[in-house]
């Protein structure tokens, strides 16, 4: 192979040696918590998988409410391996969001959000919101009874936000109620708006990680730690883990392909025991905790206000946690982090079993 000629061609025009030198400088510390370093890469890998499977699926999906459900059935029954790629896209989504939550909670508990990495937390949080919306919009494209009801509840819930609720609801729904226009809008979000935003934010997020280097937990910061070069050592370890994740997604996709429900009827009542996707369950359960009326005020509005405050606090944690930004042990915020993590897990499980 004239690999050497190609290499010469490139080296005459670009500073390959310089770039290689830069790459060699990326070092990663070795310590007992290093396993959590892989969570971000796993999330990114799964999102790339989603992009690829999503792109091929979009060749065949018809985003018009009359044909949407049928087009998916056609994909699953008539196309070469259609059922597999749709199943892969479904399981990829489930695992991507799981990996994302693991990544978020691990950075919360390890306090990687502290100074100087506040912007990583901010961009990451926005990415979390985008990913959840990815999940919701993608699920809606099925246009089956469950998806239809789920979006009705989700957008209706958003409508209960104080002040901005009405606008958010109308913006998301494209009107007063969930209709075919909502499908068009969600399709635009799912294949165009959200992917572009994701690319932009992930780019910033990854660049910031390169700039700041890997965060080390405060308890280990003072000690000198062994550093290994990212290229090639950690790159290969990343590759091994990504291959395992790929194997897991493919196995799940093959052995447990998801169902498709009947086409949605806007006038039909909501199906029995309707539940949203698992990553919404903790919100769903929290809403259930609040009685309909508290001291004369609408219980649901109060619930939404409290939840919004909780989420806002979560979003701004790096700025509230003064002690860790000074590099001091911050026990209060460790407990706050534990509380958030446990609350999420417990509420999700309760939502699942009830």
């Amino acid at each position, binding site marked *: 192979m004239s690999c050497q000629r190609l290499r010469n061609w490139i080296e005459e025009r670009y500073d390959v040696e310089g770039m290689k030198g830069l790459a060699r400088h990326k070092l990663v510390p070795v310590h007992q918590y290093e396993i959590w370093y892989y969570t971000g890469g796993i999330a990114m890998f799964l999102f790339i998988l989603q992009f690829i499977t999503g792109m091929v699926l979009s060749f065949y999906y018809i985003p018009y409410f009359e044909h949407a459900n049928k087009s998916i059935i056609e994909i699953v029954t008539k196309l*070469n391996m259609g059922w597999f790629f749709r199943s892969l896209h479904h399981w990829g989504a489930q695992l991507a969001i799981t990996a994302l939550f693991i990544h978020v909670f691990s950075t919360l508990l390890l306090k990687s959000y502290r100074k100087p990495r506040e912007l990583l937390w901010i961009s990451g949080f926005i990415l979390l919101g985008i990913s959840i919306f990815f999940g919701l919009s993608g699920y809606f494209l099925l246009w089956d009874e469950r998806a239809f009801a789920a979006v009705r509840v989700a957008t209706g819930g958003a409508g209960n936000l104080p002040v901005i609720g009405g606008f958010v609801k109308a913006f998301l729904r494209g009107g007063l109620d969930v209709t075919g226009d909502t499908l068009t809008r969600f399709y635009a979000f799912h294949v165009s708006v959200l992917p572009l935003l994701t690319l932009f934010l992930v780019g910033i997020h990854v660049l910031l990680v390169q700039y700041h280097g890997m965060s080390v937990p405060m308890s280990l910061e003072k000690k000198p730690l062994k550093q290994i070069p990212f290229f090639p*050592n950690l790159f290969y*370890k990343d590759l091994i883990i990504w*291959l395992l994740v790929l*194997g897991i997604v493919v196995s799940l996709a*093959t052995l447990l392909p998801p169902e498709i429900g009947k086409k949605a009827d806007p006038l039909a009542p909501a199906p029995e025991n309707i539940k949203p996707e698992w990553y919404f369950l903790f919100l769903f359960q929290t809403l259930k905790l609040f009685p309909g009326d508290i001291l004369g005020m609408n219980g649901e509005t109060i619930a939404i206000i409290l939840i919004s405050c909780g989420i806002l606090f979560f979003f701004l944690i790096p700025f509230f946690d003064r002690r860790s930004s000074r590099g001091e042990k911050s026990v209060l915020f460790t407990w706050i982090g534990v509380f958030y993590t446990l609350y999420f897990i417990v509420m999700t499980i309760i939502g699942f079993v009830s």
Partner: protein
Amino acid sequence: MKKTIFAFLFVMACALDLLAQEAAPVEVFPSAPYDRYIIFQSLTLFWIAIIGLIIIIRMKLKEIERVQKMGIDREEKDIPLLD
């Protein structure tokens, strides 16, 4: 040297053929037993491919770590330039 490379390429061609076969089209939502067997066989082959790849990468990693421990991967300082 040539023989090793040819022997190796032959093995690779077989692997490639196997993997192409694994992706043999499953035309219908699998209910027919024939299709289901193909799918499970493909899944097994896929896992063998992944595990093989992981083993090879681990071999590479071990070799790199062995070389790094010897310290010969870093460039010596003050090495004289050939002009």
